[in-house]
Every structure is written in C-alpha cells, then in structure tokens.
C-alpha cells in the first residue's frame, strides 16, 4: 500500500545525516518550507551542502539553519537580501563556502539531475567571471558553457495540497523551485498545507506527479517568514 504521509516534520527529516546535500525550495519566503527547516535544526545534522536560491532572512528558517553552523556550503544565485544578516557575517569570516550560480542555470542544473541528464550547455555566463575554468563549446556559431547537474540526497519543499500518493499542487509564486527539487533528490520531503483524499486533485492540474515525492507532512498553518522576521523571532524560538 502506498502512503507517503508522515506524521510529523521531525519524523520526516529524521534520517538526514551529517554531510548530506539538501535542496531547500523557496524564492525568499515564498515557498520556503520553514517547518521542515526548523525540524532539521532540531535534528542537528552538520556539514550540510544546501542548494537554495537565497540564503535566508533574519534569524529563522534557512538563515537559522546557517546560523546554527549546520551548513558548510551553499549553492545559491542570490545570497544577499535586505534583511539577510547571518550569511554575510559567516561568509566574511570564511566559515561558509558559496558556489554562486545564475538563477536559470541553478534551476536547470537541478532539473537536469531529476531528468537523468548529467550536464548541458547554456549561453548564460559566457565571457563572464562565472564561466572561468569551465568547458565551452560552439554550436551554430554561438558559444555555450558546460554546466553539470546537481543531485541531492534530500529536498525540502513546501506545497499547497498533496495526496497520499505524493501528487502536489502549489500556491502562486511559491511553486518556484519546488517541482524541480522534488525531481532531483533521492528523498524529497514535502510540507503541504493540506492533505486531501485520492482523487480530489484533478489529474489535469497536478503539478508534481507523486513519483517524484517520497514523504509528505501536513503543516496546516505554516509560519510566514516575513512576520517572524518583523517580530525579530529566532529559531530555536526565543
């Protein structure tokens, strides 16, 4: 019998070991699986490589995971935001490694891993410092840069609704990296606002088919990161 529903966030992340590569969905706060990240903080796994578009805000969610010294490297397109304080401080001290990747290349490297494509050529970064040391090739007179797929051990993703087969739908621009991160990780862990009975999600409208999803946790009232940041909250809770 297939039932991907896990009772708690704590149980869902319990086997993430030290040294794992973990993809974390979200574009800023939109789509950030904050309860799963907090469960990973409680679990305490160290030396993680995190793949995420940003590096978190304030002292909650991804920023708190970094602040808790659990992340040794981040693969990211934009680690700087107005209220990102944790990452810049550790980066300047040389305590966290950054691999800066253009946003589209990041998305495609993740998608490629999920699609069984080890590497691909892209026109982004040609003739820039971010292409230094990378293989290039000319196709039809245009130069492209070789980029490699990013595979993850785990991904943490937030969605709107899920069923026990792991079919997912998202909410607005909170979808962002969720679908490709579910594809690219050996174990994808999803927090859903609502778990619905089989058949309730219209098969024509399912965004992530359940085959890409391993675990689903219902978090019916997820915290809003910007509210927590405005209230100067910290995780573990202050």
């Amino acid at each position: 019998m297939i039932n991907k529903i896990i009772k708690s966030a704590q149980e869902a992340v319990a086997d993430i070991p030290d040294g794992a590569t973990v993809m974390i969905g979200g574009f800023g706060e939109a789509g950030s699986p904050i309860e799963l990240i907090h469960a990973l903080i409680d679990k305490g796994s160290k030396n993680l490589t995190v793949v995420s578009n940003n590096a978190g805000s304030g002292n909650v969610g991804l920023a708190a995971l970094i602040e808790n010294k659990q992340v040794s490297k981040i693969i990211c397109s934009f680690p700087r935001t107005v209220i990102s304080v944790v990452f810049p401080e550790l980066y300047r001290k040389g305590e966290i490694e950054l691999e800066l990747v253009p946003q589209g290349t990041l998305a495609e490297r993740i998608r490629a891993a999920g699609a069984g494509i080890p590497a691909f050529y892209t026109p982004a970064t040609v003739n820039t410092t971010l292409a230094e040391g990378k293989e290039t090739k000319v196709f039809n007179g245009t130069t492209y840069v070789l980029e490699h797929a990013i595979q993850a051990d785990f991904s943490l993703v937030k969605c709107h609704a899920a069923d026990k087969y792991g079919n997912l739908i998202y909410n607005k621009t909170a979808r962002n990296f969720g679908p490709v991160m579910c594809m690219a990780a050996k174990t994808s862990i999803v927090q859903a606002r609502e778990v619905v009975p089989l058949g309730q999600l219209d098969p024509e409208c399912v965004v992530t088919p359940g085959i890409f999803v391993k675990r689903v946790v219902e978090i019916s009232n997820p915290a809003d990161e910007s509210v927590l940041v405005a209230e100067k909250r910290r995780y573990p809770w202050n």
Partner: protein
Amino acid sequence: MELKETIGWSTGEMAQNVAKDIHDGAYVNLGIGIPEMVAGFIPEGREVIYHTENGLLGMGKVAESGSEDYELVNAGKKYVTAIPGAAYFHHADSFSMIRGGHIDICVLGAYQVSEEGDLANWSTGDVDAIPAVGGAMDLVAGVKTIYVITKHNTKSGGSKIVEKCSYPLTGKGVVSRIYTNLAIIDVVDGKLFVKEMAPGVDFGYLQERTEARLHQ
C-alpha cells in the same frame, strides 16, 4: 563633488521613453528598480504581458497595502498581483522562457555599458561585497532584445557609457539600446549612435559626459 544635471529627462520620462518602444503583444521582463516603472507608461491600446522570473506570466500591479499575499511576489520579492489570464510555472520553465528566446524584451539597470553593448550590472568587483547574481546573466543571454535604463553619469560625474567595462560583465555584446536622462543611444555593430537627445542637450554636451565615442 556631486554633479547635478539641470537639464535632461526625469526618471519617469526615461521610463516613458522605454515604454514607447514596447510593442503591442510583447512579453516583457522588467528588472528590479527603475525598470519596474516602465509598466506604468505603456501607451493606451497596447497589451503587454509581464514575465517575472520567479514563476509568473501576467504580473499585475504591486499589491495594495493590506492585501499582500506572501506567496505572490516578483523577482524583487515585492508583493504583486496577477492579471486575469496569468499563469504560474516552476523555475526551470520560467528560465526556458528566457533562455529559449520566448521573451521579447528585457529592461535592466546598469553600472556600465560599453560601446560593444557589453553590460556590467551585477557586481562592482568590490571584494567585501557578498556576490549575488540572480537571473541577470540568464536574461541577457536569452532575451531577444535587451534595453538598458540608467542615469547617464554616476553620482560623482563618471561616465556609465564606456569604451570597455571595468566592472565584471553580466554579458558581452548584449545591449541593443540605452535610455538615459540625457539621450537614447543605439548600439549597432560596436558603435554607439545617438537616436534622440533630451530637450536642451546637444551632441557636444552629451559627448563631454560620455567616455565612449558617440556617433550621430
């Protein structure tokens, strides 16, 4: 010393100049900051669809205070709205629209633009700055037409339109047209041609404020 321009277009007029060149039916990506203002000046009778790379085609106006949705943001992480007929999609699809050449126009800001159309807009090379690139390199590599909107000079009076960019490049030979407070300048085959000048600006005045050689 800060050089105050007493003549030239206002920021709103610069945005209006860009808007006049956006055709009916265009799919457009507007960069963060001044480029976002362009949407407010599209001439009556033209329908333009805005793409935001975090996964929305058919972005509407900025959300009104009190009705913000934390899960509906633009690339600058501002709370926005979606128009009737909008579509949401994931990041790999969004950048397929960009890299695949499906977006017609992208309007971006700049630190520097060279006469070859090279653009520097993601880093000043400052070693203390936290490096961040976002989608800029994908946009300039993939979107058919890149327009730059920028002040003609830096706050200290330096030229932003240069022979060769000294800042790290976002893309090489990618810019088609530059809209500044003083002029509209086309990049054609490695040369800069002045298309239009702001009221009160003449060619000599413009060249004096521009490091790169301009052509009439």
